[in-house]
């Protein structure tokens, strides 16, 4: 009973928040609503017994991602109303609803959901975080490491792209400038090669 109340409450809240995120014309509202939506989602994780995931959800999304967005938004003029040219809003809604219906149909229909066997069963004796840790560092070690590397790469990419020395960034320079720069740098490099 408690679970049901919690589910419906959070479901309503999440939907409301995300609708605001999608529909509002104020960037700040959207940001705030999304942050709230993320936290509400973490509630579902807690209900579903995925404590670790819930915590991660709050830390990563509400903490890191939202902070990142907030920083990002500082570059832009966020106070202004977001003006968007919209054509055929009906098409958008029809497509969205259709996609939702189909996804739901596929997921709900018993064909798929009944045939799943547990590869890594939840061990009641251990805590959720413990179990996850165990699996993550045994079965999913390689993906985990790859994900880590990917995050590192993303971090470096973020720094390079948005970093301080933007005037030297290759992505910002015209072709001629790059050519000029490489020409000037060519000399010292060859000298280095001579050593």
């Amino acid at each position, binding site marked *: 009973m408690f679970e049901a109340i919690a589910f419906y409450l959070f479901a309503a809240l999440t939907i409301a928040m995300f609708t605001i995120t999608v529909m509002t014309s104020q960037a700040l509202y959207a940001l705030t609503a999304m942050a709230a939506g993320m936290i509400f989602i973490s509630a579902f994780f807690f209900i579903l017994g995925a404590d670790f995931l819930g915590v991660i959800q709050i830390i990563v999304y509400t903490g890191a991602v939202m902070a990142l967005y907030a920083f990002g938004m500082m570059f832009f003029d966020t106070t202004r109303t977001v003006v968007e040219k919209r054509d055929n809003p009906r098409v*958008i809604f029809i*497509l969205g609803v259709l996609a939702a219906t*189909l996804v739901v149909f*596929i997921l709900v229909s018993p*064909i798929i959901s009944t045939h799943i066997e547990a590869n890594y069963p939840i061990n009641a004796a251990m805590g959720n975080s413990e179990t996850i840790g165990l699996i993550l560092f045994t079965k999913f070690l390689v993906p985990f490491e790859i994900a880590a590397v990917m995050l590192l790469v993303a971090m470096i990419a973020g720094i390079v792209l948005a970093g301080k020395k933007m005037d030297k960034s290759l992505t910002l320079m015209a072709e001629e400038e790059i050519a000029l720069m490489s020409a000037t740098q060519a000399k010292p490099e060859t000298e280095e090669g001579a050593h």
Partner: protein
Amino acid sequence: MEIYLYIALFAPLAGSLFSALFGASPKTSVTGIVASGLLFISFVSSAILLNYVMMGHTVHVEMMTWIAAGDLYIPFGFVVDQVSVVMMMVVSVVSTVVHIYSVGYMDHDKGFNRFFSYLSAFVFSMMVLVMSDNFLGLFIGWEGVGLCSWLLIGFWYHKESATWAANEAFIMNRIADLAMLIGIFIVYWNIGSLQYDVVFSQIANLPMPIITWIGIFLFIGAMGKSAQFPLHTWLADAMEGPTPVSALIHAATMVTAGVYLVVRANPIYSLIPEVGTVIASLGAFVAMFAATMALVNRDMKRIIAYSTLSQLGYMFVAAGLGAYWVALFHLMAHAFFKALLFLGAGNVMHAMHDELDPFKMGGLKKPMKWTWILMTLASVALAGIYPLAGFFSKDLILEVAFVEQHYVLYTVLLLTAGLTAFYSFRLVALIFNGDERHLEHGIHPHEAYNFMLYAMAPLGLLAVIAGMVFKTPYYEMVTHLLPALEYHIHNHTTFWIMTIGTQLFVIAAIAYAYKKYAKAVKVDKKVESGFFYQLLYNQYYIPKLYDELFSKPYRELSRIAWKQIDLKIVDATVDGIANVIYRTGEKTHTMQNGNLSSMLRWMVIGLVVLLVLAVAFTVGYNAVTMRAM
């Protein structure tokens, strides 16, 4: 004896190849002499073989394998037996004469060497045809003579009519050849061999319908080569070729190949008398049909060609009624006098500067005495007057029809005999008697070279004696192989009435022809514009009919097939598919407008489509498995 067989067979080929070496160079009389000489050698070998066969032997050789695949085994095998030796003699005699004659006849022609090359090649093909010991070997010769006939009809290739006639002859023969091939296929798949001896010994074991089909298809093949109705039109048109060619190919040898085939396949045909009756009826019809066309024609060579057609009809009557030896006998006799007639016509043509209309000739008796004698002799023989060759062979066919109680056929043949006599002497009378009408055209006729006349002489002799002298030994020889059926009318009175009656009828026809045409030619306008005259003069409108019914529609259909179907339907479909793809690209490339927003929208549409498909397939799959369960 085998060596003689090979000599008889390959001497003409050697002559042909020798002449071919000089094919493109200007006239060298050596080619004519060598080719004639080699043919004479072939003739001598044939005579030796004849002698050998008369003693009751046969020669059978297998030279080498030709086609062998799976169970099929076809060798180049040759057989000299009582039937083929007769044909060999006919072919070698007539062709030797024609070769020697041609040396004179083609004297001034640019294609002299080429001519001998073709002519000897023809003789070779004909030898293969008659000597082969299996059906496919016969077919080689069959097609070979067709090829040579094509080459020789179209010898003067700059003439449109000649090349047209050559193609017509070849294509029409091809129609019949298809039937013959089918006949050969049936034989092979039912008997497993194409060798005559195997086929003929096993043919009786086959079910009746199959034998009938074999008989029908082989006969259709024979019809093409022997120009039987309805495949007869090519023969008259084939007269476009040089006259010696007409004498050799379109009178004496090639056109009788059909008769030879029926005679050779007599074990098959004697099992199916119904088909035989059909053959005989068709033969009688053609005899009459061709004779009527000859009555009014104004082209010397065509008249003789129709006469040939008519006589071939006689032969088929005999063959169809089971009197194979009679058919073969008439074939032989006919070869001699008809070749003679043609060669005589060749002399006349030379004298008249290639004029063919006998109404523009006349009174040639004086300048061309020997030709006149020989042609009259040949005509008498053709008419069947005692004691010349025609009497013994042609009247025999009448007797056969009578004895076999086919009285309708008998009547038709009798009437035709009268017609034959009439048109033959109409021709002779027009050419040699009466006023010298050619003088109006400024032509001064002259007799042919002496050696040409000497060359014709043996034929003249044979036309006289072939019946009287050869009949008994011939009969004794061929009945080793062919059914020995004597045709005697047992009632002596009937026999004499018939014989004398026929003779009188024929003589009356000759007299009428002389009366009408010997003195002055009165052109009766009323008769000429009459329906029957026009019908006959236009060959029953059959060539026109064929043109309208087959040639033109075929040409038109071909054009439609190419312009409409091939280009506008088949190819256009392919191009259409390509265009649809291309246009789709043209149209949809606006989708790639680079606008990320619309791309996202397309992405969602794609997602929805995929989801729909997923759902549809799953539902469908479940439905199928449910039903299966």
